């Protein structure tokens, strides 16, 4: 009989769903509809296969992370599971370089000491000490880059960003979590068009996703709009312009939302400029990263413009304490 392993203990599944198997023993697993719809009981398979019906209705990125609905999962083999949000693993990494991208933004390049799996666009938690940590999105691509790269903006009075700007140097050892997040490129459907909208350091995951998609030979259009109040807030402009020159299906639009327009830049928010150029997003896949107001507005506007609700992927960067970092959630 298949068994369910959870938090170090093992339980006979006995023909029950994973949810019933665990909750009937008094273990706390969130749930609501118990009909495979609300996705409250989202869990993650750590080891063992999940029967297909347990992933019905999940987005491709959730499936790729081995997430499943506990209420719909009737194990056919032993299965080790975890709550979707639980931090499971920590890794040691050495800082290979700190690179200046911009006055207020540094690229932190890290080399984990043990094999580290992630997808371009996910984020990791960087620990300053046992109690202080922030999430940073990864701009690197596993197939292209040896190091993990995060973009860190200096936040006024930010503890972790201040520590990175003032103290962290090449050769230092730091602790990071495994990678999280659903905002990443999923191979397949290579003809599908992709729209990416970002503000500020929200460019980091999008930069990873764009390069990942191009490297995998994505054939559909890939349109990236990066916005800031003024031209000084934009970065990686040359790198992205070069990429656009090499790949005819890749369009890059650096956008300035305030002040006078400038040569080589587009005037308006990334959302406005994108919808002006492409008013009909039927069939498009959409990635949104950065300022939470922008992300929420763009989520609704791109949906109303025709993008499917299950094809809009977002990482809103919330200010945690005083620092902007992607929100750690299951969705």
């Amino acid at each position: 009989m298949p068994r369910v392993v959870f938090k170090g203990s093992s339980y006979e599944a006995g023909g029950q769903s994973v949810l019933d198997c665990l909750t009937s023993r008094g273990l706390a697993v969130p749930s609501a509809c118990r009909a495979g719809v609300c996705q409250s009981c989202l869990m993650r398979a750590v080891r063992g296969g999940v029967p297909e019906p347990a992933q019905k209705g999940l987005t491709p990125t959730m499936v790729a992370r081995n997430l499943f609905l506990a209420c719909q999962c009737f194990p056919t083999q032993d299965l080790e599971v975890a709550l979707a949000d639980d931090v499971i693993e920590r890794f040691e990494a050495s800082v290979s370089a700190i690179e200046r991208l911009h006055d207020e933004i540094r690229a932190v390049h890290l080399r984990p000491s043990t094999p580290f799996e992630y997808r371009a666009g996910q984020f990791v938690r960087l620990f300053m000490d046992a109690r202080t940590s922030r999430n940073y999105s990864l701009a690197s691509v596993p197939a292209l880059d040896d190091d993990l790269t995060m973009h860190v903006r200096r936040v006024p009075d930010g503890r972790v960003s201040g520590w990175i700007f003032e103290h962290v140097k090449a050769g230092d050892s730091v602790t990071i979590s495994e990678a999280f997040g659903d905002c990443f490129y999923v191979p397949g459907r290579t003809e599908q068009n992709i729209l990416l909208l970002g503000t500020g350091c929200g460019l980091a995951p999008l930069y990873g996703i764009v390069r990942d998609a191009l490297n995998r030979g994505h054939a559909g259009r890939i349109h990236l709009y990066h916005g800031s109040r003024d031209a000084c807030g934009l970065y990686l402009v040359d790198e992205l312009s070069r990429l656009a020159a090499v790949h005819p299906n890749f369009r890059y639009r650096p956008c300035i939302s305030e002040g006078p327009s400038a040569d080589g830049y587009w005037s308006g928010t990334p959302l406005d400029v994108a919808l002006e150029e492409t008013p009909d997003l039927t069939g498009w896949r959409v990635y949104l990263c950065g300022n939470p107001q922008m992300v929420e507005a763009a989520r609704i506007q791109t949906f109303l413009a025709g993008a499917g609700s299950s094809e809009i992927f977002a990482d809103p960067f919330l200010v945690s304490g005083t620092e902007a970092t992607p929100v750690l959630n299951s969705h």
Partner: protein
Amino acid sequence: MALYEELGGEAAVNAAVDIFYRKVLKDNRISRFFTGVDMAKQAAKQKSFLIMAFGGPNNYTGLDMRTAHAPLVKQGLNDSHFDAVVEDLGATLKELKVPDNLIAQVAAIAETTRNDVLCR
């Protein structure tokens, strides 16, 4: 045949959910009730509502419906708004070329939630 199968089951729900939700968000009569809600979560809720209205498998409880809508009732949610949603649902099904007699059955199921939604 049961209504849910006749409509096309889960595939029909998937085809309808985005069209329906777009209509609701664009409907000036009711869009204000959706400002500031988490769209991803809301899309899942719309889907579970459609499964129920299509006569599909669900764990509908009037209590959940009341709890979920109580804050909206405080903001003035009333019969006219409920009618607007049912109308948008009907228009969605019409767009998907569902026959009128089935649309009427869906509307009748939706109607059974009126008092719970309006917390009466």
